[in-house]
């Protein structure tokens, strides 16, 4: 992750005069407004989760209400078994899917960056990306029948397959871009020394691609963690992931805001933290390489 932090420290743009002018304060104010709009719903949710009794309009802790951790204790304490199980399910599903997607994505990404294929590399890239363009319902309906016949409904393997399929395009693109930017001479030199294609890949290319591997892993993990639609149909008992608990928050005791916001915040924490770690790779990963970040 070294060059990641280096990129973050690079200057943004230098086309602005050096002295702080009136205009600079306008820009900083606008930036603060944007930051406030992006963050305040989370902030409001945090405050709400610290209230045990709902009183409308009270938002200032200590002054208007006494903050406490009752909602959090309840989520992990008395109602904890369900929570912990769903969090365990989410973790295992996301880990499995990430492992599969990153492995397949790294191999395919290396192939696409280093070789020319008869059908055309760009057609192969479209092949890998097509999944992101399809409306998920179109594949969800046959998945129900396929999984029923293969006995994969409500299993870890089934959920891993589903999420690996969704995240494979991110892995392929991130890895392809990174391998394409490595100097091709390295591979050629290794080949001349008598190393085979796979040895070259494992010993030379893969260690160099560690930052991209980290990025691919974190992005695949975050997106698998957030998946709800397929889980709602294919895993609604033993392998229920956490987003299903979030979705069902109102059926437990009506809408209890403290309870709902606590669950929402738990669901949101993991992917948001992961995203902050891979800022540099996000642009390419999200546009499927169309824009270089």
């Amino acid at each position, binding site marked *: 992750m070294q060059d990641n932090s280096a990129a973050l420290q690079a200057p943004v743009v230098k086309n602005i005069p050096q002295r702080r002018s009136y205009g600079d304060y306008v820009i900083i104010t606008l930036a603060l407004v944007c930051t406030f709009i992006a963050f305040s*719903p*989370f902030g409001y949710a945090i405050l709400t989760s610290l209230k045990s009794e709902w009183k409308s309009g009270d938002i200032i802790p200590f002054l208007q209400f006494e903050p406490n951790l009752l909602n959090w204790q309840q989520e992990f304490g008395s109602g904890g078994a369900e929570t912990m199980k769903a969090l365990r399910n989410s973790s295992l599903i996301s880990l499995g899917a990430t492992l599969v997607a990153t492995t397949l994505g790294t191999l395919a990404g290396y192939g696409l960056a280093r070789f020319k294929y008869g059908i055309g590399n760009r057609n192969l890239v479209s092949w890998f990306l097509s999944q992101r363009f399809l409306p998920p319902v179109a594949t969800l*309906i046959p998945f129900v*029948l396929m999984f029923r016949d293969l006995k994969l409904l409500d299993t870890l393997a089934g959920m891993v397959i589903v999420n690996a399929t969704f995240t494979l395009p991110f892995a392929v693109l991130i890895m392809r871009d990174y391998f394409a930017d490595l100097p091709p001479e390295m591979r050629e030199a290794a080949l001349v020394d008598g190393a085979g294609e796979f040895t070259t890949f494992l010993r030379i290319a893969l260690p160099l691609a560690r930052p991209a591997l980290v990025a691919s892993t974190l992005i695949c993990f975050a997106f698998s963690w957030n998946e709800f639609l397929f889980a709602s149909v294919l895993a609604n008992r033993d392998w229920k992931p956490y987003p299903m608990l979030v979705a069902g928050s109102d059926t437990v005791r009506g809408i209890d805001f403290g309870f709902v916001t606590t669950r929402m915040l738990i669901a949101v924490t993991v992917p948001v933290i992961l995203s902050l770690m891979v*800022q540099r790779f996000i642009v390419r990963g999200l546009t499927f390489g169309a824009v270089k*970040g």
Partner: protein
Amino acid sequence: MTNNRAKYLFLMPGVIWILAFTLFPLLYSFGLSLTNYRLGRNPKYIGFENYAEILGIGDEKVDKKAVSTASFSAFLFLGSTASTLFFGTFVAWVFNHSLPFLRQMRAIVTMPLFAAPIAVGWLGVVIFNEQSGPINNVLEGLGLGRVNWFIEPMPARLAVMFTDVWQWTPFVFIIILASMQAIPDDLYESARLDTKSNWQLFRSITFPMIAPALGTVMLLRMVESLKIIDIPYSLTRGGPGSVTQTYVYYAYETGLVGSFQLGEAAALAYLLVIVAIVISSIYFYRVRERFE
């Protein structure tokens, strides 16, 4: 091992995976759409009857719910795409300055994008709440009065749209910011000799330079906006009535809830697949050189 065999071994696992879990289901889905399959009953081949029923071809009447949900999806397709492009570009312009604290704030601004959409929907439930939500409190404080976000059709549609726009503006923001940062400084320096107006600089330099990236982002946003289901699922449950039910949500409900009419749902989904194929073809045509 020959070079030639090795290069296919790198590619094959991924290709087979997509074949098995994307292409095969897609063909399976098309097959289903030609049947009257309901879970627990024996499917019968009925040709294109499901499509005729949805579109109102021949003796059939057009499926009113398909039309109304499709029109809400179109509302999001236009409204959400346009709003995220506008706000995302504006925020990118603001953050494309070298001033203190902007980098730290930038990381916070991107946070909504990575939150699970199903959770973002619940966040909306709390924020838009009619009695106690902060939005109504602010509106009342400003003397504008409270809005019945979940009872009246138009406010409900807007609540879904605003929530989606809040989540996806950072997506446009990060990409457009990256493309603004790629503009060489000397372009601005020479233009600054002619004008001092920020708006003029934006129009004559920034906008033409970010236009290709904007086009790409627009296509990606269009595709994503057609897939919206998680946010209305948790924010409004498609209500009041079904005014905030998206087309995808309707297909989901038809095939996977209640009576499980898989054949009809597959036909509904397939009509959307056609739209997705058109948009993705434009996308791949635009970006084809990058991948050779």
